[in-house]
């Protein structure tokens, strides 16, 4: 098979081209958001929101409404609950997050066990990108584009918020609103991504791209661009791998992102372990020669 044929073969099947679109849109949206999540330290929050949407998705299917609606309600609700617990008790952030999202997740499992015929648990947990309906693709595209656009338009304020919240306040920026915006976008992004990789793996898409890009550059703007680029390539690579190796698409995409991280970890120009050792060795050699 020629390389062109190899690339074109999966695209002959409608289910693959649809899966590719959903996966890439979801991955890119997550990648943009992950740059801030990774810097602020909200990775656990990403995990929490992605699990908390389970009851929302189940209820959506039961009521026959778009899954995005139920998922967003519960995602945003989880954030509000977490905030409420933290504001009214001495419980630390990670415990508050843990209690809230596991409760909601368990509630979702119970709901699904009562209505097994209307909800397919394994598809919600692990994604069903090979079987996305037209309505689901539409939701993914619209929400993905909207979320990405808002993130990119507000990227400077969000970066300032992540870096120096006090200064943001000092120049009159309403940091509470920025916080709400960021968390709201997190909920939306989770809604998009769960179509591609399912609830369990969404958090990977929200963390790995940002972590990878962070190892590759010292400028935040470039970090966003790199995260998007690396993720898009990984999403395509993962989807193609799943086709030719006949394995889970969601799993393959996440593994591809992890492979990118491993490469950055070892060879990244900014902080790669191997690169650093090579540089050190060269410097030592130069010193010895001098």
């Amino acid at each position, binding site marked *: 098979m020629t390389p062109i044929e190899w690339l074109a073969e999966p695209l002959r*099947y409608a*289910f*693959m081209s649809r899966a590719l679109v959903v996966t890439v849109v979801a991955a890119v949206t997550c990648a943009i958001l992950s740059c801030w999540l990774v810097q602020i330290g909200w990775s656990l929050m990403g995990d929490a929101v992605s699990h908390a949407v389970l009851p929302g998705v189940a209820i959506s299917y039961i009521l026959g409404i778009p899954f995005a609606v139920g998922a967003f309600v519960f995602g945003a609700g989880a954030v509000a609950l977490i905030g409420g617990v933290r504001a009214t008790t001495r419980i630390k952030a990670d415990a508050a997050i843990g209690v809230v999202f596991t409760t909601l997740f368990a509630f979702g499992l119970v709901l699904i066990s009562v209505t097994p*015929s209307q909800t397919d648990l394994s598809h919600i947990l692990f994604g*069903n990108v*090979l*079987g*996305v309906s037209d309505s689901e693709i539409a939701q993914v595209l619209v929400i993905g584009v909207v979320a990405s656009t808002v993130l990119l338009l507000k990227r400077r304020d969000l970066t300032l918020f992540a870096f120096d919240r006090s200064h943001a306040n000092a120049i009159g920026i309403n940091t509470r609103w920025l916080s709400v915006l960021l968390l709201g976008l997190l909920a939306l992004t989770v809604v998009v991504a769960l179509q591609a990789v399912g609830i369990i793996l969404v958090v990977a898409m929200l963390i790995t791209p940002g972590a990878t890009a962070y190892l590759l550059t010292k400028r935040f703007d470039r970090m966003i661009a790199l995260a998007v680029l690396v993720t898009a390539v990984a999403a395509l690579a993962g989807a193609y791998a799943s*086709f030719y190796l*006949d394995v889970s698409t969601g799993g393959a995409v996440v593994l591809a992102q992890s492979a990118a991280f491993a490469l950055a970890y070892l060879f990244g120009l900014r902080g790669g372990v191997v690169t650093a050792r090579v540089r050190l060795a060269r410097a030592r050699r130069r010193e010895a020669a001098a």
Partner: protein
Amino acid sequence: MRKTRGPLAAAVAIAAGLVQALSGCAAPAAEAARPDDRPLVLTTFTVLADIAREVGGGEVRVESLLKTGAEIHGYEPTPSDLVRASQADLILDNGLGLEGWFQQFLRTADVPHAVLSDGVATVPIATGHYTGEPNPHAWMSPVAGQAYADNAAAALGRLLPDRADVFDANARAYREELQSVADRLRVAVSGLPRQSRVLVTCEGAFSYLARDAGLDEGFLWAVNSDNEGTPQQIAATTRLVADRNIPAVFCESTVTDAVQRQVARATGATFSGPLYVDSLSGPDGPVPSYLALLEHDVDLIVRGLSRE
């Protein structure tokens, strides 16, 4: 010491009372109505329950562990399920590896038990992780279903020996009805154009039906407990439908049809469904009985494949 015992005892009493009340609420309403001293026959799923009812007549109480619509391959029995099972007088299951989740219980429980697929000529699973093992969906064949009826009559006869002849008579009548379904199926399929005689479904659950009817079989995945809907499975099925110009593809009621609909979209075949396999519908639904299930499925398949 004395002071704390009071509140603690009260808490335990309240908790015990709550548990009692809740489990009382969960018990089926029928049991509260009138004491029924007929023996209780418990089957694993609704299809077997219907067969047992037909053969048993009114002599026994028949209940199904799984509710209608539930997925049988990966079912997780709840504690109340196991309690019910231990209180039954006879348990009837399918066998052939369908109810893996029940085997542990059956081994250790002290309840009479019969496997309804005993003696059926099995069809091996062709692809996937369970290749070579017998396909469990033997009841989808109206011919094999007759063996189910006989096995049920035998088991019920052991339970109530003085009604054994009633059970045998019921089983004979039932077998005739099943045979007429089998005959109608063969006739209908032979009326289809040769290249349309391919049944494409989600799960490979129709091997026995296909064998009886003279249909070729195609499916996305072999068994529901295997990988469902991998890219190669979808690609292979899409190619099959496209190459042989199959007019219709089908899916069962207990699995999501999203992937099969993709195949239909891609090839121009009509998506038709649901076919009922692992479960009957409710009493007001399209397939309230085993016979209705077979007739419904046959009808849907023949109509779908008769299209151009």
